[in-house]
């Protein structure tokens, strides 16, 4: 899988896709959606779709793309290669969401939480397939959050398509399992070849599974915390695991809109009435308008 675009800039998101098989523009197709890397505190989250004509579902099943969770990494890689070979009837697309995008979305001033980001990404990929001319008639999605709500949202986006949102969809529908394989292959490769934009010197690649409860991952986080900058952008700052390390190991930072400001700003209401001695003469407006005051101490 060619992730060179991601390796060039892994601070935002990037979309990859296979060519659209001609038959998918002619025959009604079924499309599966799944993601990989939702839980880890490290690395990107990858959303994938995989689609094929209804008439070729049996061939897709024959690829043994059974429940991707039961497959090893090498088996997934091999299966992905086979799907690539069967590109005359199988198509896929990915949306790689960088850890930086996840962190900045979840921690932004206007919160954009992971579920919304996930739902929008899934809908975006289905729309992408439609824009490529794929004749999608059925969509199967592995659930994120409440299946009913998610199903309702997606059905609203795509009224002409039969949408099914189900938990464990990757075990039920081969096209979802195929999507899950694409997502996992992409995530594993992205994590393995992660380019640290921070030019870290002694970065060790042994960060374990990336899941918060993995001792190797926790050790790696503790080793790479930087008191002023926190972590490399490989880390999802919005994860509780990362935040609790920052609270212990990193320096505090205050922002214009941080709550501390309110207490400080209010002060004692009486202070406005009690004349506390002669008011120091204010500097001339020329200086006030420019925020300049005499330096009385260095």
């Amino acid at each position, binding site marked *: 899988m060619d992730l060179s675009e991601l390796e060039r800039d892994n601070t935002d998101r990037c979309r990859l896709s296979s060519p659209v098989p001609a038959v998918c523009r002619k025959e009604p197709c079924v499309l599966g959606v799944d993601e990989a890397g939702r839980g880890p505190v490290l690395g990107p989250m990858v959303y994938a779709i995989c689609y094929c004509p209804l008439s070729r579902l049996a061939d897709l099943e024959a690829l043994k793309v059974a429940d991707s969770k039961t497959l090893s990494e090498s088996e997934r890689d091999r299966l992905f290669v086979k799907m690539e070979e069967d590109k005359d009837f199988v198509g896929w697309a990915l949306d790689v969401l960088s850890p930086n995008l996840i962190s900045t979305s979840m921690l932004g001033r206007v919160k954009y939480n992971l579920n919304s980001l996930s739902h929008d990404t899934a809908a975006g990929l289905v729309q992408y397939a439609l824009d490529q001319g794929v004749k999608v008639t059925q969509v199967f999605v592995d659930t994120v959050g409440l299946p009913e709500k998610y199903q309702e949202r997606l059905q609203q986006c795509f009224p002409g398509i039969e949408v099914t949102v189900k938990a464990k969809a990757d075990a039920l529908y081969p096209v979802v399992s195929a999507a899950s394989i694409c997502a996992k292959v992409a995530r594993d490769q992205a994590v393995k070849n992660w380019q640290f934009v921070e030019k870290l010197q002694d970065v060790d690649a042994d960060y374990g599974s990336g899941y918060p409860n993995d001792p190797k991952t926790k050790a790696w986080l503790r080793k790479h915390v930087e008191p*002023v900058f926190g972590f490399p952008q490989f880390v999802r700052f919005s994860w509780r695991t990362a935040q609790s390390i920052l609270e212990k190991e990193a*320096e505090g930072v*205050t*922002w*214009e809109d*941080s709550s501390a*400001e309110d207490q400080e700003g209010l002060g004692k209401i009486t202070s406005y009435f009690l004349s506390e001695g002669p008011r*120091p*003469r204010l*500097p*001339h*407006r*020329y*200086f006030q*308008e*420019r*925020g*300049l*005051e*005499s*330096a*009385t*101490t*260095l």
Partner: protein
Amino acid sequence: ARQYVFLLPEYLKDASKKMKNGLMFVKLVNPCSGEGAIYLFDMCLQQLFEIKVFKEKHRSWFINQSVQSEGHLHFATPMDPLFLILHYLMKTEKEGKFQPLDQVVVDDTFPNCTLLLKLPELEKLLGHVTEEKEIDSKKYYKYSKEKTLKWLEKKVNQTIVALKTNKINVGARVQSAAFFPGDQASSDKEEDYIRYAHGLISDYIPKELSDDLSKH
């Protein structure tokens, strides 16, 4: 260690190279409030600079490979030392007699005020604000209010020219919130310029002299 970010005139750069302590920060009196303030003395050129500081909340600096927590920005701008000497001359006004300068410019709160006595052309400067007498080739000075007001009037006029040249908005405050130069210049009246310039100069002189200047 703490680090400071200063905007300085370019020519000061070599002052600190030419001689040890080429540039010294000293605490001297603020001639308007009588409190202490930080000044920069360039010992080579014997020039005085006032220090203004721009400090907003929640600001820090990255300086090379370090973070400086307090994100203040300091400006050093040349200041006429006569404003400081005037402060001491006015303090001795009540005694009403001619005195040698080194008995006037003394201050145990800001002992560095003696640096002012080493300024070149000090005598010429003093001529703007004092009457002087020479006895046995020693000079004695007495504060002169009317000479000082004439000198300040010149300062106000120079400031008015500078305000116009720099298109500083001197009109009603409401426009000044976006004090970008340009559109308002023509509309401001001469009166506004005089008032604004008087206000600026008054940041460097005691209150009663500011009132006298306003009448003058």
